[in-house]
């Protein structure tokens, strides 16, 4: 009896070794997992640190002043911040209804043999590198906008009260509207694939009950599917918004890269990301510091937008888990 008990309590050298290895292994893994946290925090802090010079010089004015003049060493970020928000909003105004339509098509309307190929083709759009969108925008879309888009907008929307001034401008093709449109095409595959995926989580018996009561396809989608997936749909939209806010190359080609405030969407403007991409490599001292601080602003804005997106998406999956 005593020998057995003793044997049980004295650890074997082998199991001791296993235990040590197991511990070491788990510590290494835990460190790498925390590295992900460190990476995100490091990214934010390094830009804030890089921007300290201009923050000391301009203070809060940096965020509220529209004067961006590297020659005289004055930096106010209002114009690029405004441009970023405006292009992203234009993108979402176009992308949200189109994405919803595509998701509706892929889940309810299309014959089942068409769903996979069309869905995959739309997702391929998401894989095309953003610089290709930029080149396409500059060489194909800009001439089309110059030739047809801008004159039409000037004649039809430009004469309207209130929103008229937004659509008056020279026929140069580049500008915030073109940038917003290119962004919309980039964002559509992301938003539509999230929407499609969440539409597919709706229990079939809910939809079939509605169909059995005589509901039309549209009524099923609008009154059954959409209320059920509301939070995740909003999450998908915010995911697309996060992408639109931070997109660089596609915008840099077509936005015009002019740091000047303008009400018209047809005038050249700029966004935070485009401004950094264009000027950072050549910038020195305070200018570089100002661009780093702009990067920090962009990071904070996208962080909040993406956080909202994730929380909204998690809400649906949590309900899925409870069932």
């Amino acid at each position, binding site marked *: 009896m005593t020998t057995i008990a003793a044997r049980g309590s004295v650890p074997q050298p082998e199991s001791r070794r*296993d235990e040590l*290895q*197991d511990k070491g*292994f*788990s510590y290494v*893994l835990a460190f*790498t*997992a925390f*590295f*992900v*946290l460190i*990476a*995100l925090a*490091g*990214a934010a802090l*390094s*830009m804030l640190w890089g921007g300290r010079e201009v923050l000391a010089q301009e203070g809060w004015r940096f965020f509220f002043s529209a004067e961006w003049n590297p020659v005289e060493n004055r930096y106010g970020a209002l114009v690029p911040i405004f441009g970023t928000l405006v292009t992203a909003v234009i993108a979402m105004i176009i992308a949200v*209804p*189109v*994405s*919803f*339509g*595509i998701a*509706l*098509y892929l889940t309810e309307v*299309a014959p089942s043999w068409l769903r996979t190929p*069309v869905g995959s*083709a*739309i*997702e*391929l*759009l998401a*894989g*095309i590198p*953003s*610089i*290709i*969108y*930029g*080149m396409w925008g*500059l*060489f*194909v879309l800009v001439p089309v906008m110059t030739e047809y888009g801008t004159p039409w907008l000037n004649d039809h929307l430009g004469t309207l009260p209130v929103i008229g001034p937004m659509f008056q401008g020279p026929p140069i093709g580049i500008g915030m509207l073109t940038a917003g449109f290119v962004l919309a*095409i980039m964002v559509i595959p992301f938003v*539509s694939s999230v929407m499609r995926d969440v539409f597919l989580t709706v229990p079939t018996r809910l939809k079939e009950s509605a169909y059995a009561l005589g509901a*039309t396809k*549209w009524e099923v*989608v609008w009154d059954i599917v959409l209320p059920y997936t509301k939070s995740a749909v909003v999450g998908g939209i915010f995911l697309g918004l*996060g992408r639109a806010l*931070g997109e*660089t*190359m596609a915008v840099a*080609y077509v936005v015009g890269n002019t740091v000047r405030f303008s009400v018209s969407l047809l005038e050249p403007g700029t966004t935070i990301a485009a401004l950094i*991409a264009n000027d*950072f*490599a050549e910038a020195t001292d305070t200018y570089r510091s100002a661009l780093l601080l702009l990067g920090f602003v*962009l*990071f904070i804005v*996208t962080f909040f937008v*993406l956080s909202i997106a994730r929380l909204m998406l998690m809400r649906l999956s949590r309900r899925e888990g409870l069932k």
Partner: protein
Amino acid sequence: MSATQTVATSNRVAERLYRKRRIVNRIAIILSCAAAIFGLFFLAWILWTTISKGIGGISLALFTENTPPPMQSGGLANAFFGSAVMCALAILIGTPLGIAAGTWLAEYAGARKIGTVIRFVNDILLSAPSIVLGLFVYTVVVAQMGGGFSALAGAIALAFIVLPVIVRTTDEMLRLVPAQMREAALSLGVPQWKVIVQVLYRGASAGIVTGIILALARISGETAPLLFTSFGNQYWSTDLTRPMSSVPVVMNQFTASPYESWQTLAWAGALVLTFFVLVLSMIARAILLRNKTSND
């Protein structure tokens, strides 16, 4: 008003409502078809532009000669080489870190709060603007090395894009491995790290490989984070501590130029890049699809 009349009017009302519902439904269906056509139309248009403008520049010289000075002929050999080196390095740095972190999330974090937090942060890193990661690596690596742009810095910037993709796929794929596999191996007295490395990784390998391919597809077209980390180099360079050329950055430089020979090269690069990225994402899709059908 007689009873028959009331029935008739209520019938008419019902009829009108029915017709209205049908019209609304018809309009919705037509609009959704239009939306799908809209998406496919732009995919086709962008692909067509890349092919029609890029096909003229495809030649053997594209892959054997270096980027030329303005107005002269040449190729993109140094850019292809630079992209390959930096992408490979980024995958080499990002993959082990990502697999390890993903494993911790799936196998060790359990229901702990910190696991949820790291997953959340990883998801944000996954969709964070890539230019921000470029700025991060600039301040942490380039500025610390005295402001010299280097291929290594470019690779590190790309590795930060690879990392969250691998973390996510590893985490998801490991959680798909049935619990019986873990229990069976553990009950044989196998230490946990061996269970993970020899049993679970084998079960999740197809998924993890898909993640690596998708990450490669994503970074091979990334321009923004390379602009001020690896910068660019007109010549063939194998030195990781010096600026190195890459396809997207050369495309960016050449597209904006007024020289026709440069623009032709830029579009040829765009065509090769798009083709490469689309083939990679199709391979990834095929692996996933095959795995799904074999598991069912």
